[in-house]
C-alpha cells in the first residue's frame, strides 16, 4: 500500500500535535467527546465492535472488538486495571458495564494485540452467553466506551485486508464467505427495514435530503438566481422538527431494554370500567381488590407476567376522574404518570357507557382516548361486553374494526371471559412488536448500529442550528452528516441525487 498523503498540508498535523503536547493531557481526553454523542474527534482510527457469531439464541456468542481502543474496552469491561492479560489466552472473567459496574455476564475474554489478530489491529473477543438480553447488554456497554462504535457491514474484513492480514491462501474461499456475510446482512437489514421502522427512516431520509437540497441550492445559486429567502426558513422548521422527532424516537425505541426490564403495560381508564378485574384476569389471581365502588384502586398495583415468553410489567392504576379526595387525587396523578412512562397502555372502557347509536361509537372513543393518553401506544379494551345486547355487540365489533384514528379495539367481558382469548392474542403481538423478535435475525446488533447513527444524525442537526446564522457552509455540513448517518441505515445518497432535487424545485438560470 502506498503511503498516505496529508491533505491539508502540514497545518492540521502540527496543530493537533501541539494540543497533545502543550496540554499534556492523556489521549483519552481528546476522545471524551464521544460521551455526549458527538463522533470521536481526534482519534487515529475508530474502534469497532460487533456480534461476530451467528444471530439468534445460541449457547455462546462472540463479540469482537477491533481498533486502538480495544485495550480500553478490555480494561473497563473485564476488570484488568493493572496489566492486560497474556495475549491469545482465554480467561474467565466477569464482564461488567463500565457505566454502572453492574455484572452483565461471566464469560471468556481473549486479548489479541496487533498485529497478530484477524484484523491486524489490537483486538478483543468476548465469548458470552448467547441470550439476546446478554448480547444486547454487552453491545450497549461497549457502545458506551469512548472511541468505540458499532462496525459497518464487512468492516472487520476490510480492516484485515488493509492491514495485509489476508494473503494468498485465504483468497479462494473468501469471496464466497464475504458474499454470504453481506447477503445475510442485507437480508436482515431488508427485513428490519421493510416494516414500520423502515418507512419511518425512509421518511426522515427523504425529508432530510430535501432540506439538504434546499440548503445546497441556497449556497450554490442564491446570489445569481432567484431562490426565495423563505427557502431557508422552511429548512429551519424542518430541521427542528426532524431533530425533535429523532430525539423522541431515540428515547422511545428501547426494545432491547424492554426485553431485559420487561414491557411496561399500564391499565388505565375511567373509574369502575373494570381495570382491576382485567389485571386479575391477566395474572390469574386476585392481585387487586375489586369492588363495584368507583375509586376502589387508589394506588398503582404492579405485577410481573410472562406473556408468551415476553416479560411484562403490568400496572393497574386509579380510575381517572376529578376527585376532592386528596388520596384519590394523588392516585390519579400517579396513574397519569404511569401512562406517560408506559410502553403500552390498555385503555379500559365500560361498554355500557358507549353511545347507543353504534356509528357514534368511534367518535366517542376517539375523544375518550385523547383525555387519557397523549403519545404512547395503546389498545382499547371495551369491558363488560356481556351487558350489551347481542345485536349491538356484533354491530360494534364490525363498526370498530380498523377505524382510522383508533388503536386496536377488543370487546371483552371479564365476567364471562368472552373475547379474552382474542384480546390476549392482540396483546401478545403488541408486546412482541415492542420487544422485537429475538429469535429472528439480530435486532440487538442492528438496533445498536441504528442508535449510533441516529444519535450522530441528531447531533449533526444540532450543528445546523448552531451555525445557521454565522456560517451556512458549516450548517450545511451538519445536514450533510445527518443525511450520511441516516443513509448508513437506509442506503447511500450521492451529490447527484441532491442536485436532482435542486433542479426539480428551483428555476436555476445564470
Amino acid at each position, binding site marked *: 500500500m502506498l503511503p498516505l498523503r496529508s491533505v491539508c498540508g502540514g497545518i*492540521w498535523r502540527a*496543530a493537533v500535535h501541539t494540543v497533545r503536547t502543550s496540554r499534556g493531557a492523556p489521549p483519552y481526553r481528546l476522545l471524551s467527546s464521544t460521551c455526549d454523542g458527538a463522533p470521536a474527534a481526534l482519534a487515529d482510527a475508530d474502534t469497532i465492535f460487533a456480534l461476530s457469531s451467528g444471530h439468534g439464541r445460541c449457547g455462546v456468542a462472540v463479540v469482537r472488538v477491533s481498533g486502538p481502543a480495544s485495550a480500553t474496552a478490555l480494561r473497563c469491561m473485564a476488570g484488568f486495571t493493572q496489566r492486560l492479560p497474556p495475549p491469545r489466552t482465554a480467561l474467565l472473567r466477569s464482564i461488567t458495564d463500565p457505566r454502572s459496574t453492574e455484572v452483565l455476564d461471566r464469560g471468556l475474554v481473549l486479548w489479541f494485540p496487533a498485529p497478530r489478530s484477524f484484523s491486524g489491529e489490537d483486538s478483543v473477543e468476548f465469548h458470552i452467553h448467547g441470550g439476546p438480553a446478554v448480547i444486547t447488554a454487552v453491545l450497549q456497554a461497549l457502545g458506551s466506551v469512548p472511541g468505540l462504535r458499532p462496525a459497518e457491514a464487512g468492516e472487520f474484513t476490510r480492516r484485515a485486508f488493509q492491514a495485509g492480514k489476508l494473503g494468498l491462501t485465504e483468497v479462494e474461499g473468501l469471496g464466497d464467505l464475504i458474499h454470504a456475510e453481506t447477503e445475510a446482512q442485507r437480508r436482515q437489514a431488508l427485513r428490519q427495514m421493510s416494516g414500520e421502522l423502515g418507512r419511518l427512516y425512509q421518511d426522515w431520509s427523504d425529508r432530510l435530503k430535501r432540506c439538504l437540497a434546499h440548503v*445546497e441550492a441556497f*449556497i450554490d445559486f442564491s*446570489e445569481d438566481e432567484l431562490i426565495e429567502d423563505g427557502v431557508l426558513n422552511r429548512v429551519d422548521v424542518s430541521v427542528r422538527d426532524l431533530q425533535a422527532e429523532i430525539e423522541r424516537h431515540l428515547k422511545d425505541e428501547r426494545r432491547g431494554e424492554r426485553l431485559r426490564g420487561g414491557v411496561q403495560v399500564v391499565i388505565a381508564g375511567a373509574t369502575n370500567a373494570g381495570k382491576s378485574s382485567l389485571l386479575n384476569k391477566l395474572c390469574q389471581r386476585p392481585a387487586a381488590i375489586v369492588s363495584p365502588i368507583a375509586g376502589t384502586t387508589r394506588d398503582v398495583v404492579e405485577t410481573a407476567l410472562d406473556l408468551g415468553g415476553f416479560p411484562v410489567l403490568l400496572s393497574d392504576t386509579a380510575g381517572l376522574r376529578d376527585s376532592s379526595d386528596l388520596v384519590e387525587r394523588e392516585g390519579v396523578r400517579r396513574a397519569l404518570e404511569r401512562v406517560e412512562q408506559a410502553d403500552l397502555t390498555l385503555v379500559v372502557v365500560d361498554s355500557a357507557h358507549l353511545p347507543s347509536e353504534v356509528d357514534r361509537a368511534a367518535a366517542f372513543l376517539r375523544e375518550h382516548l385523547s383525555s387519557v393518553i397523549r403519545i404512547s401506544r395503546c389498545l382499547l379494551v371495551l369491558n363488560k361486553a356481556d351487558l350489551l345486547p347481542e345485536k349491538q355487540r356484533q354491530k360494534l365489533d364490525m363498526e370498530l374494526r380498523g377505524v382510522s384514528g383508533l388503536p386496536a379495539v377488543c370487546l371483552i367481558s371479564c365476567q364471562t371471559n368472552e373475547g379474552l382469548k382474542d384480546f390476549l392474542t392482540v396483546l401478545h403481538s403488541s408486546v412482541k412488536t415492542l420487544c422485537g423478535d429475538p429469535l429472528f435475525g439480530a435486532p440487538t446488533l442492528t438496533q445498536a448500529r441504528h442508535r449510533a447513527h441516529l444519535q450522530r444524525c441528531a447531533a449533526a442537526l444540532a450543528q445546523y442550528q448552531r451555525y445557521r446564522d454565522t456560517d*451556512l*457552509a458549516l450548517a450545511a*455540513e451538519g445536514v450533510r452528516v445527518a443525511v450520511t448517518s441516516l443513509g448508513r441505515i437506509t442506503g447511500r445518497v450521492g451529490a447527484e441525487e441532491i442536485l436532482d432535487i435542486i*433542479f426539480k424545485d428551483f*428555476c436555476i438560470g445564470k
Partner: protein
Amino acid sequence: MGCSSTKPHLAHVGHLAGHQYDVIVVGGGHAGTEAAAAAARVGAETLLITQKIHTIGALSCNPSLGGVGKGQLVKEVDALDGLCGRAGDWAGIHFSILNRRKGPAVWGPRAQLDRQRYRDFIQSELLSTPRLTVLEGSVEELLVTEPNPEEPGHHRVTGIRLANGSHAISARSVVLTTGTFLSGSLFVGQTTSPGGRIGDAPSSPGLSHTLRERLGLRTGRLRTGTPPRIVKDSVDLSLAKLHLPDSHPTPFSFLNTHTHCKPEEQLPCYLTFTTPGVERVVRESLQLNCHIQQDTKGPRYCPSIESRVLRFPGRSHQVWLEPEGVTSDLLYPQGLSMTMPPDIQLRLIREIPPMRRAEIHTPGYGVQYDFVCPTQLSPALQVKSTQGLFLAGQINGTTGYEEAAAQGLWAGANAARWALSMPTVTLSRTESYIGVLIDDLVSRGVTEPYRMFTSRAEFRTSLRPDNADLRLTPKGFEEVGCVSSVRYQESLRVRNSLQDALTALQALFLSTSSWKKKLPSVPISETKSTLLTGLDLLQYNDVTFEMLASAFPESLSSYMEFAQRLKIEAVYKPHCDLNKKEIERIQREENMSLPQDIDYFSLPVSLSDEVREILDRVRPSTLGAATRLEGITPAAVVNLLNYVRVTEKKKETHRNQRHQEAQRDEELCANSASLPQ
C-alpha cells in the same frame, strides 16, 4: 504582474516540417491555453495550434470569471501556477465575493472581465512562455500508430496532420481542446450551419472521424447557447437595479495583493427581470426555433430563456446586464441565451423595460457539438485506449471557462509528463475541486454539460478557496513540476507562518477570567472553568485575530497579514479534523490502483455478472473510484481489493525473482570470469 510584450514564439508551418515536439495542444481556448502553458512549465517542448492567433484567450460567452464553485477552481488553477487567476486579476473590472455571508468555505470569488484585456494577458503570457510555440492552423487529423507494448492501450498517438498542405507534425503526446468545434453546428432560428463559434471556420471533420472510427471512442452530443449582445447606448439603465462591486476588490491569485483595476474604477452591473411579454414571444416563436425543439441535452443550470420560460412558466426571471469591458459599447444580458430568429430576439428583449428601445449588436445562437464520453479517460485525462492522447474542456462534456481551465492545466501537465517519460499524476477528490471534477467525469460520465458546484465536493469544509495554495502548490512543485519555484517558496513561507501563528495561538493558555479581562467585550461564559487557548477564543463569533493580536502584540502582531486566513483556519479546524479520517480512508482506497487491462469477465474472484459488466464498462482506475460506482456492492469492493493486493504481491515476488536471477547470472559470469586461468 505585467503585460509587457515580449518577442513572440510564433511559428510558420514551413519551419516545422520534420520538427519533433513533446506536446501538441490543439485549441486556444481556456483549456488549450492552460494546457500549453502547463506542459511548457513542466518542461516539454510544446506547440499550440489554433485557428486564429488573435482569438487565443477569447471569452466566447460571458465576460466573467469565477463564482460559487467556479471561483474555487480558479483559485486551484492559480495555486498550480495556471493563467486564469492572474488573467482575471489583470482584466477584472468588477470584483465581488459571492456568498459573503454564507461562510468562507463557500465564498465565490468572481469578476466581470474586460474581454480585450483578458485576451491580451493570455496572449502575452503564452507568447513569452519558454518552450512554447504558437502556430496558426487547422488540424486535419490525428496520427496514430501501434501501441507501445509495455503500456496498456490499443493505439499510440504520434502527432497531427494540418489541413493546408498536409503537413505532419510529430509529438509524443497530443492534447485536444476543441471546445464546441467537434462536429459543431450553429443554430439561429431555423437555419443551421457548421461551426463551433460564430465568426470562426468549422473544424475539419477528419478529427472527429479519427476519434470515432479509428480510435473507436464513444461520443455523445450536447448543446449550449449564448445570448445576443446589446448596444449599451440603446439601453435605459435607469430602469434597472444598480449592482455595485466590492469596494475592496479581492484578487484571485495568491501572488497578487491587489487587482489591476483600481477599486474606484470598477464598473457596475445591472439587474432586471423578464415580463409576461417575454414568455409570450417565446411561445409564439417555438415553431421557428429548431435548436430548442431538439432533444440534445443542454445544461440545466445555464438554460436558454426558452427553456426557463417553458419549464417555469408564469414567473419573472432574472436578467443581469453586464459590461463587456472598459471601452466596450456592448452589454451582455446574462440569462437571455436564445436561439430564435434575430428579428424575434429583438422583439423579445424589447419586452424587458430597460431594453424597450434596445438594439442587438450580435444575435444569440445555439451550438450543438460532439463530446467524448469521459469515462474513457484516465484520471490523468488521457484516453485509456490511446497512449499519449489527452482531452480537456468541453470535449469531455463540461461547460464553463473554469472547468475547462482546470482540466486543461491537468491534461497539459500530464501530457508533458507522459512525453518526458515521467509517470502521470492524479488529484484526489479529497484534496481539490479539480480532483472532484475529474473524478466525476472519468468515473461517472456526463449526461448533460457538467458544471462545478460546491455541493459536489464531499469535503467542502476542507477544500476552501482560502487554502488552495496550501493544498496544491507544494504538490504542484514537488510531484507535478508545473509550479515555479518563486510560487513554491511563497507557499512555503505562508504555510510556515500559518503554522507558527497557530502554535503561538495555542501557547496562549489562560483561564476564562483572565480572558475576560483581556477581551472585556467578548461574552465568555464563566461556567466553563477550563483553560482556553487563543485558538479556542478565535473560534468565537465575535473574536477576530486583530483583537487577539492587540491583546498579545508581542506573540501575534507579526502574523497580521494572515489575520483573515487564521480566523478561518480556527473556525474550520474542528470540522476539518472530523473530515480527516474519512479523507484518509478514501485516499487509502484511491491509492490502490486497478490495472487498466484487467479482463473483468474472466477475473478469478467472486463477482456477480452485473458487477463485472459495470466494471468492464467503466474501468475504474482505482479502488476508490470503483466504490463510487452505482451497483458496486461492498462485497465486490472487498474482492477487488483482495485481487489487487494479491497481484501486486505476485508482481513483486516476480520482480524480486527476476532480480535475483539476474544477480545470480551476473555472479556466475563474474565467477567464471575470475576462474583461475
